């Protein structure tokens, strides 16, 4: 089962807020859990990723939390800025193939 469910579909936060985007999956064979950021007219850019043997990873203002038993992982954006307004995709990997979630459109208001 390759289904990947991402929530929420859209999100509006004020500058400085902490948006949280969630991703739930079924396939326990996924071995790598990245988040991608996509701006309009651009290809997705790798933002941050985690391996399943780690429960949390921080890179700058971005944090992934991983819950293997619940088959969920989430993206937290600390001190969000208007420049973070974009669409975010989780894309867990199986046999080098990414399975993209449905996407979350984030708007950070000034």
């Amino acid at each position, binding site marked *: 089962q390759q289904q990947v469910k991402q929530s929420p579909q859209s999100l509006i936060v004020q500058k400085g807020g902490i948006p949280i985007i969630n991703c739930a999956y079924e396939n326990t064979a996924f071995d790598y859990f990245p988040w991608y950021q996509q701006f309009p007219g651009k*290809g997705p850019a790798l933002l941050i990723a985690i391996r399943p043997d780690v429960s949390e990873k921080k890179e700058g203002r971005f944090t992934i939390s991983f819950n293997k038993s619940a088959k969920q992982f989430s993206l937290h954006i600390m001190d969000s800025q208007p420049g973070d307004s974009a669409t975010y995709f989780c894309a867990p990997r199986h046999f080098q193939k990414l399975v993209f979630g449905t*996407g979350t459109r984030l708007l950070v208001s000034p």
Partner: protein
Amino acid sequence: SAVISQKPSRDICQRGTSLTIQCQVDSQVTMMFWYRQQPGQSLTLIATANQGSEATYESGFVIDKFPISRPNLTFSTLTVSNMSPEDSSIYLCSVGTGGAYDEQFFGPGTRLTVL
């Protein structure tokens, strides 16, 4: 990371025609992939472009409609054949770097509109 370019960046085509999209990487990579992103939607994997052999297609995609070539480790093409308006999408090339985490990086995409 890898620097990936795609040509053309966008095109408008008539139904029934074909368009070939090129993907060029600035370094040799093991894995190359082609994705489709319909307007406002997520990304769907079309196929894995294998160097020296036929591409591996995902369910719902066939070689006659989306022939793929990969003549070397830095270049691939995707052809969208006998186009219909339903083929209007963004087509994206991605590469796997084969590093410790084998991250995948994406090109800028080709925006195709079929009239």
